[in-house]
């Protein structure tokens, strides 16, 4: 049942470019899709371990810069005459490096802050994002600072036997983003339904009891941070190669807030939550633009968020799945994620 719903959703999303020709809307869908991947990675931390990363955009931005610099190459001076020179590599290598580097940063931040957790994690992540932003702004030799890195090449996927597929058009980018999103979704779903996910849930609900049955707090939370950061890094890389120009504004706090809003409104701790929340808040500006002044748009944006949280405090997806299961006369699934009911329904 759930598997069918997932497959139908994917098919519906895959069919969009076949009937939607408007390049403006396609562009909105692609950037929204990229942010949804970021929101899904944030949800792994916020929804499944209860740790709020308010600097999540740092991992996204690190992914973007890593990927851009890998494909552009750089020449930086260290200690007088000694230079580190990197020749441009294929962008696809940048994509994978972005995942690795962002994951590594997730490991460092996790190790640093999960000894104390809670508010400390929030503070460490905010500071981390700000530090990374300042580095990107001031290390002009490497990042061009506010002048931005531009002319970032498009990702080219090598095809066996043939030459390669350059992801240049919106159509290509749409399918690339969709593919990465589906892979990220499946990985997160598998993770939270495995014993790793149960360990996270146990820690979130009752840490003392969880450690008493042998769950290692630091290891579990750090693992979640690494995977979350790595996925955010992948999203950042897609962003860099789609927009093809990045500057330190990518690290703006508002970008983190956008992801948090997507997760909270859609429903944290639910796999589909960030997708639903992301589609609503990612596409809302597109529909508001013809009918409202920019200032009014922001007010409407805030208003919709308040209404959603007021009427559906647990988020859209958990509230509706609760309603559905009530109608069917079943016990409501706690927070929209009952392991028990997912027995036979591994996603494809």
């Amino acid at each position: 049942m759930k598997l069918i719903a997932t497959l139908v959703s994917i098919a519906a999303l895959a069919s969009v470019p076949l009937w939607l020709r408007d390049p403006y809307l396609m562009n909105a869908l692609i950037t929204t899709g990229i942010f949804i991947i970021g929101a899904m990675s944030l949800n792994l931390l916020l929804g499944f371990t209860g740790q709020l990363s308010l600097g999540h955009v740092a991992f996204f931005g690190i992914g973007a810069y890593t990927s851009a610099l890998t494909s552009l190459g750089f020449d930086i001076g260290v200690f007088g005459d000694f230079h580190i020179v990197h020749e441009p590599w294929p962008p696809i290598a940048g994509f994978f490096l972005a995942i690795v580097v962002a994951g590594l940063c997730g490991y460092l931040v996790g190790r640093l802050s999960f000894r104390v957790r809670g508010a400390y994690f929030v503070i460490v992540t905010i500071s981390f994002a700000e530090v990374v932003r300042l580095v990107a702004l001031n290390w002009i030799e490497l990042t061009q600072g506010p002048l931005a890195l531009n002319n970032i090449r498009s990702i080219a996927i090598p095809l066996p036997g043939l030459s390669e597929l350059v992801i240049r058009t919106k159509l290509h980018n749409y399918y690339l983003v969709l593919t990465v999103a589906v892979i990220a979704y499946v990985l997160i779903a598998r993770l939270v339904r495995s014993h790793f996910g149960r360990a996270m849930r146990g820690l979130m609900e009752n840490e003392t009891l969880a450690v008493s049955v042998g769950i290692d707090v630091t290891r579990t939370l750090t693992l979640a941070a690494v995977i979350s950061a790595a996925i955010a890094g992948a999203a950042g890389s897609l962003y860099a190669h789609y927009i093809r120009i990045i500057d330190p504004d990518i690290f703006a706090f508002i970008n983190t807030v956008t992801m948090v809003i997507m997760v909270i409104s859609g429903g944290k701790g639910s796999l589909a939550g960030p997708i639903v929340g992301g589609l609503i808040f990612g596409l809302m500006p597109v529909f508001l633009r013809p009918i409202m002044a920019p200032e009014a748009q922001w007010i409407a944006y805030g208003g919709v968020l308040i209404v959603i949280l007021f009427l559906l405090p647990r988020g859209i997806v958990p509230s509706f799945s609760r309603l559905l299961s009530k109608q069917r006369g079943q016990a409501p699934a706690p927070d929209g994620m009952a392991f028990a009911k997912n027995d036979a329904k591994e996603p494809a």
Partner: protein
Amino acid sequence: MTTAVPALKVEHVAIHFGGLVALSDLNFTVDEGEIVSLIGPNGAGKTTAFNIVTGFLAPTHGSVSYRGTPLDGLKPHQIADIGLVRTFQRTSVFPNDTIYDNLLIGLHRQSRVHLPEALLGLPRARLTERKVRERAHELAEWVGLGRRIHDLAGSLSYGEQRLVGVALALAAGPSMLLLDEPVSGMNASETHTFVELIRNIRSRGVTILLVEHDMPMVMSVSDRIVVLNYGRIIAEGPPDTIRNDPAVIEAYLGKAAVHA
């Protein structure tokens, strides 16, 4: 008595909280397969002793070892890996999960697979999952909650939550189980069933250390009793000896009797 090495050995353990001496020079052992109770008036240091043995508190002095392995400096999850698992007085379950999911979380140690195996859904990960899910059903049946396995743990009665707590601890696969006031809040018939359960657990080769206030229950189930008062041991021995020990009677009744 056997000459075998005791399973649990607590040697010269003391803990101070600032100026307060919660435990001073605590020494006792628990043999393999024994059921030992730790009793004493409120504030005697029973739960503190439990917290030290299971790594939730570090003693100021002294050491604890299990089957010859010193537990000093080990974290609670590492002590669980060695085979020592405890239950809690209050927070004994994950309230927002079903009994089934509670037990699955408890089965963490049995469900470990490598991350790539879990992410890619490899055969070994699937096989482990299947086994673990079967085991969760068995455990629920075993504590008599098989029919309510999909109920939220938080919706159960206090006594039932206690049973889930024990099943959770057993899910971790302990060779020694530490039960912190397991029958408090249970009625007489629930307590009776619980005593049977404890005996049943012991007959499967699990050593048991119990903290409990319910004296009839302690007397009926224990092989040996250790009595604490003001952070020190005042008596130790089989139930019959303890029942008639003047120091124990004074600790429980003496002062009240004198002031009456």
